[in-house]
């Protein structure tokens, strides 16, 4: 079963009398342990595709399946539950909750599911912290962590609920080449170790060799 399957997906916006096409008849399949790099210039539609795959946006037409769930016609409430359980996000600007410790940030998705008190949840958070090299930093607030450590916490948060699909938005956009490579290595290693699928959106072609496959998108159209 593929981790992600987009079938003839369109996303359009109206601006006055004109229609803006953000994604044009996009079809894409990501295998359940595949890492896909989605490459394209700014405004090409790659973030729109990522948002549709993650249930943040609904397509204007076409079908979206994630981990075997057809989310095309999900209601806002169903999409909220879907995002909580079926996908993990790593945002461009990391976006940790500033008043939660590293451990609590990793557990926040579980907390939203009402599982914060589970011993298993806490054990999993501690295990993730260890695996991400943050074993001693679990009780630190984001402000007490370095940029790299914060990035690792964000990755831990995305992996916490063991989703079938991880969606990563421009992880290296604000980093120099050396740091960018480190972050990509970390993401790829963690995703591969868990045999999970990932879609990594980037405009930086130097990073695409980390992925199993790369797909280019231009003006909302995925290259054949």
């Amino acid at each position, binding site marked *: 079963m593929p981790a992600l399957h987009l079938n003839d997906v369109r996303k359009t*916006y109206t601006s006055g009398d004109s229609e803006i096409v953000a994604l044009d008849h996009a079809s894409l399949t990501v295998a359940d342990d595949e890492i896909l790099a989605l490459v394209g210039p700014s405004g090409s539609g790659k*973030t*729109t595709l*990522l*948002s549709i795959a*993650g249930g*943040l*946006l609904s397509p204007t037409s076409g079908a979206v399946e994630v981990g075997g769930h057809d989310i095309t016609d999900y209601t806002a*409430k169903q999409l*909220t*539950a879907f*995002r*909580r*359980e079926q996908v993990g*996000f790593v*945002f*461009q600007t990391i*976006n940790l*909750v*500033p*008043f*939660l410790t590293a451990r*609590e940030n990793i557990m*926040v*998705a579980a*907390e*939203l*599911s009402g599982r*914060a008190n589970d011993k298993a949840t806490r054990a999993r958070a501690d295990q993730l912290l260890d695996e991400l090299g943050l074993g001693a930093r679990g009780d630190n*607030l984001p402000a007490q962590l370095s940029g790299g450590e914060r990035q690792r916490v964000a990755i831990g*948060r995305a992996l916490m609920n063991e989703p079938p699909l991880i969606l990563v*938005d421009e992880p290296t956009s604000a980093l120099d080449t050396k740091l960018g490579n480190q972050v990509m290595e970390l993401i790829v290693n963690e995703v591969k170790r868990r045999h999970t699928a990932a879609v990594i959106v980037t405009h930086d072609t130097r990073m695409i060799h980390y992925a199993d496959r790369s797909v280019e998108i231009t003006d909302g159209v995925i290259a054949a």
Partner: protein
Amino acid sequence: MRLALRELRRRRRAFLPTTFALALLVVLLLALGGLLDGLYLDSTGALRQQDAPLVVYSDSARDSVIRSRITPETRATVDAVPGVARTTGFGVALVGGHVDGRSAIADTAVLGYEGGVHGVPSPPAPGRAWADRSLKADGVAVGTTVKVGPTEIPIRVVGWVRDTNFLQQGALWVEPGTWREVLSESRPGAAVGDDTFQSVWVTPRSGVDPGTLAARIDRATGDTSTLTRNEAVMAIPGITEQRATFTQIIGVTFLVAALVVALFFALLTLERTPLFGVLKAIGASTRQLAATLITQAVVVTAVAYVIGGIVGIALALVTPPEVPLTLTPGRAVSVAVGIFVAALLGSAVSLRRLSRIDPASAIGTGT
């Protein structure tokens, strides 16, 4: 819920200004309410403590006990009305009182009664009185003699009663003869004859509706105005105006509290919009985030209420006795309910904004 409490604990400083502002408003509400209650209780005790539910005034008195006169003939007519179980005469003389060893004159209300007053024993012997405890501040003690009126009629205090004052004047409960003497000496033009009272309180027979009986009494006498106890209390000069004024000020203060909370949480929600976007993106529902906001509003208000309550009680303790500030459990509860409702309404203003935060904003494709 956990998220809300953790933020409160770890970003305490962000919530301090609002907590402080709300605590000040609680102090203000308790002080205003305490003054209203103090003024009301201290003006109305003599009527509120009457056991009987109805009072009969002469028609021309326009519902004032001081202007009213009930002659023995009128009282006999009232007694004869079907449904009347008992009547007790009552009268007031507002006079200055002088306590030995004190240069200041105490304002007293010499109240003549025949019994039937809650918390006040049967009428004492002539020249004796049950005194309201508030007169302690004027140097009155059990066994002391208060010399009242221009001719300094001596009245000896034989015991204490509480919450029985009239028009802010310390009550001295005396038998009817002593009251008539004080009234005729202090206001000769208002003197009343033997067996005449200013009003009579009426106890209906069991099962008789007081409203129906009041109408029946006024029809029978032709020249009386019979009021319920509450109507008589509200007819005391100034009471309605006091209550209306204070109620308006208190209402405006609750409105200010709601605005403080609304403004604070609107700003906080605005500041946290990116964070809420991220939380929605990773699966937080609007309901969960709304619960966070409301929990924080409730906790901030609870802390403010406790702080304001402690300051309010301290204020009441150091307030001089001449200031009629009375903190009652009822007032504390009404301020608590009011401030929590204001906080909830205030925080609700931000719920609409919260519901409109687009989770896609976390990833830069929000609409």
